[in-house]
């Protein structure tokens, strides 16, 4: 992959993080960096639009995005870094191979599973921090928490589907022009 394209993608990730943290009207349940990573994993697979975007670059983006989110979070460092890294690995190794990436329903299901894995990993790691006394409060499983939990999963997976579709359409037009 072109090093310049990769550097641009790094800056794009930085921009997404600023948008996520500093835009007051940003929906609290969405995660742009997770959406970017899953879309790149899906579209970077063989025979789909971004065929020269290998999973190792997605992993590096996940690490960079995770570190950025950790820097601006209230939690001890490592929560988002580990969650994004593990989600990327699990999505690439176990989720994507089980689906046909040509079907939009499959992409939606991949989005749901990846978001679910991400939310569960964040929950598990936060509890680990709580037990290690690195976090002074644990998650409270009330009605509000579960509402936001499912909103996050559905919202992220819908956006993964929409952006995957957009990347494919743009990729197809670009190939025609070439």
């Amino acid at each position, binding site marked *: 992959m072109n090093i310049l394209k990769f550097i641009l993608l790094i800056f794009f990730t*930085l921009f997404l993080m*600023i*948008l996520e*943290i*500093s*835009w*007051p*009207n940003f929906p*609290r*349940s969405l995660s742009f960096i997770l959406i970017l990573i899953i879309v790149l994993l899906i579209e970077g697979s063989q025979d789909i639009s971004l065929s020269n975007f290998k999973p190792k670059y997605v992993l590096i983006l996940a*690490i960079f995005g995770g*570190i*950025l989110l*950790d*820097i*601006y*979070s*209230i*939690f001890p*460092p*490592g*929560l988002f*870094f580990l969650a994004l890294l593990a989600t990327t690995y699990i999505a690439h190794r176990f989720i994507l191979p089980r689906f046909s990436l040509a079907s939009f329903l499959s992409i939606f299901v991949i989005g749901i599973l990846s978001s679910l894995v991400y*939310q569960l990993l*964040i*929950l598990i790691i*936060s509890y680990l921090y709580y037990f290690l006394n690195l976090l*002074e*409060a644990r*998650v*409270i499983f*009330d*009605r*509000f*928490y579960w509402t*936001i939990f499912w909103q996050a999963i559905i919202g992220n997976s819908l956006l993964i589907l929409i952006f995957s579709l957009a990347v494919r359409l743009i990729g197809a037009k670009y190939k025609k022009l070439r």
Partner: protein
Amino acid sequence: MRKAVISFIIFVFLFILIFLLKGENIFYTSLSPLQRLFYGQAEDEFIANNLYLELEDTKLKIYQAENELLKRHLNFLETTKDNFILANIIGKGYEIGFDWFIIDRGQRDGVKNGLAIVDEKGVLIGTVVKVKDTIAYLRPIFDRHSSISADIIWESSQSDIEIVSGLVQGEYGSTIKMKYIPLGKAVNLGDTIITSGLEKNIRRGIIIGRVAAIDKKPNAIFQEIVIGPIFNPNFRIVSILLP
């Protein structure tokens, strides 16, 4: 295998550099102006017309609004004679039930954990929960994990001033409740709730809100109060009260 080991060593080094050797300050310092721009501009009206004079007029109105806001902060702070630091909100976050805001003042400006943060009317917005060199994190009082010792003040039927203590905690979404108030205390709607001074670094007398609803469950030992918050929900400039 060798590549994996080298990658692992690089990541551990990056982690130590960023989080333990304060390399994160590079991000705080370089991104803070952009964050302030994003957070501050998003609520302003969108200007469709590109005429220079209209833009300048809008900028003047923004400065005027900020000036008014700062004056109100100073009015409150001069009255109470508090030591304070003014700060901008440059970001916010939410994850697994934890809410937080990011302010552009940190350890270098004298900010410490546990300090009270108020709006321009002197109403408590939240407390500082984490401090870095140049930024700090605010936990709002409506966060589920926020817990502040408070008092309710009211005038009884015999014209005596009564005070009862309790604990102010965040509930679902933006609801705030005061808990552990003895059932025998006759609290009224509209009574004022203030900080009790029992928290370290938070003085007594900072207004939190007013009694909006009273919840008395049968067979309960304590009653709960729903607090109507009176702080400005669109706060962008805040005051950190120093001890």
